[in-house]
């Protein structure tokens, strides 16, 4: 084991998969030279050359279309979109093309595309560079949506995503890029579609994704002082959603809080809440509470009021405990 930053874990995954499979290539803006805006692809150009590391014009629709067309022919593109907010610029290619190609053509095509994009606030990057849009993509059949919270998961999930034969929207969190964590020296994969119990607890389940996993863990530590033992589940993959891990935990705890950074209204927390109450209403000792951002764009200057945090999660947990 060794300590690695989240961004380096991603870079490692790319390096390893490119070394393993000649069909894997990387495409995006500035992905050569300095390795993209956040240096996730640093070193790839030196290692694999211009053929497999493709710097493009600023044309996100062309980037995604390129990936789709190449993947349909059997290549395994990893496309980078510099900020998740820019996925809007190529939304047709992602949703009407990439997600539907296989179905629309009756299974004729297989599309092993990974689209990497960093989302999330926390860097004062303003309303057009800070959004968390996973709920949109989770609503689109044909896509898988992945959202790692730790370096370990980032590396293992990215490798699995590259090997997966389906289009994957791989949502990194830019405020986590510098965060550190242990990863094994030997190769490993983290399977898609499996949530991870990041902390075992018996009193309440907290389901979280991406950066909110860390806030949930902080909250859990705090709650523990008051004798409340929260089980923290890191979704890791949004679709396919790991219903089982969630159900199993809630069966034990009978209480659920869901936390994500995206706007609370119509976010993924709604689906998880609805799903759990649908299936196990009588099991619940309290309403499912959701923690998410308020219904406002991400302000440049007021992020500290905007971002949901450990305190909010702890407060929600206390409310369900006291219910």
């Amino acid at each position, binding site marked *: 084991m060794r300590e690695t930053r989240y961004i380096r874990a991603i870079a490692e995954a790319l390096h390893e998969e490119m070394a393993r499979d000649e069909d894997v*290539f990387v495409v995006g803006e500035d992905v050569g030279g300095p390795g993209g805006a956040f240096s996730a692809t640093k070193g790839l150009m030196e290692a694999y050359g211009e*053929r497999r590391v493709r710097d*493009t*014009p600023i*044309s996100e*629709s*062309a980037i*995604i*279309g*390129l*990936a*789709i*067309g*190449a*993947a*349909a*022919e*059997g*290549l395994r*593109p990893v496309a980078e979109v510099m900020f998740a907010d820019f996925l809007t610029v190529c939304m*047709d*290619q992602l949703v*009407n*093309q990439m997600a539907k*190609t*296989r*179905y*629309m*053509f*009756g*299974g*004729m095509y*297989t*599309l*092993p595309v990974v689209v990497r994009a960093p989302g999330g606030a926390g860097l004062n990057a303003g309303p057009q560079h800070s959004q968390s849009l996973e709920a949109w993509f989770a609503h689109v*059949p*044909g896509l*898988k949506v992945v959202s790692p919270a730790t370096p370990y998961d980032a590396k293992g999930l990215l490798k699995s995503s590259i090997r997966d*034969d*389906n289009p994957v929207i791989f949502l990194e969190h830019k405020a986590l890029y510098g965060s550190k964590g242990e990863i094994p020296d030997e190769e490993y994969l983290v399977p898609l579609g499996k949530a991870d119990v990041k902390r075992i607890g018996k009193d309440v389940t907290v389901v979280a994704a991406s950066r909110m996993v860390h806030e949930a863990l902080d909250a859990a530590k705090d709650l523990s002082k008051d004798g409340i033992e929260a089980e923290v589940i890191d979704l890791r993959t949004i679709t396919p959603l790991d219903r089982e891990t969630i159900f199993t935990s809630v069966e034990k705890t009978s209480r659920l809080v869901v936390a994500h950074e995206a706007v609370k209204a119509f976010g993924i927390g709604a689906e998880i809440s609805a799903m759990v109450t649908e299936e196990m209403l009588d099991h619940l000792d309290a309403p499912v509470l959701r923690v998410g951002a308020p219904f406002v764009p991400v302000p440049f200057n007021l992020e500290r009021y905007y971002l949901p945090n450990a305190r909010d999660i702890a407060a929600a947990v206390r409310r369900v405990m006291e219910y």
Partner: protein
Amino acid sequence: MVNKEELLRLLYLMVKVRRVEECLVDIFSQGKIPGFIHVGIGQEAVSAGVCSCLRERDVVFTTHRGHGQALAKGIDLNRFMAEIYGRRDGFCKGKAGSMHIASREAGVAGSNGIVGGGLPIAVGNAFAAQYRNEDRVTVCFFGDGASNEGTFHESLNLAALWNLPVVFCCENNGWAQFTPQKVYMKLQNISKRAESYGMIGVTVDGDDVLMVREEAEKAVERAIRGMGPTLLECKTHRWLGHYVGDPQKYRTTEEVEEVRKFDPIIRFQKYLLENKHVDRQYLDGLEAGIKMEIEEALAFAENSPIAPAEELFTDVYA
């Protein structure tokens, strides 16, 4: 020069495309086909001219008005027809319908319901050929209207930059749905836009199949030789409405009649007759053969079962 065999093949393709689409208009009007369909009657010279110089391994990306493009590329008529009927034996198990027909074997990568949506994907297809050093070319069809979408710009720019083996074929029928070209763009020749990308652009009379063929051959040659993409604009005429059933209130009956004088088939037949490549009897024989082909395809399609409900859930993920 196009040899006699090839001349006859061009004729065959054009007549076949015309008759198939006439048949589609017919059966659609009888309510046998669900959804809506777009036909390119009058535009056959473009598909035939371009696709006839492609090999099986070459790939075409077609449009919502793409029956001709797919047929000229050699897609199997039976399964084509079954797809339009939405039946299980269609190329896409009936999930696609007229607007999204594809066939891997025939090198028909599939048509798109999003105007301009296929362009970036075609670039990706050509990229794969270059990446793997495959000897093949990608042709991407699109309309005059589509040349105003942002994807047109991004796709041609990238293809030119990377010198990809692709031909962008603009089937300019002068209309985007109900609106004539002059209303929605200032330029007359869309091929002019090639210069924005450092690409070669050519405009041809798209109702003259031999001219289309000639320029298409050059473009394909350039692409395969690593000399990069071409924007080939073929000016043609849409005889019918935007979709089958369109009352075309936006043009006069005279205009609708007028365009028929550009008939690319009659024009080509005249050429072939004058040059004694064919005689009337040959033409009759050809028509008869195509008629039977189509009847067979209709029977195939109509006998093909409707996909079962379970099919709803397949093919979402690999």
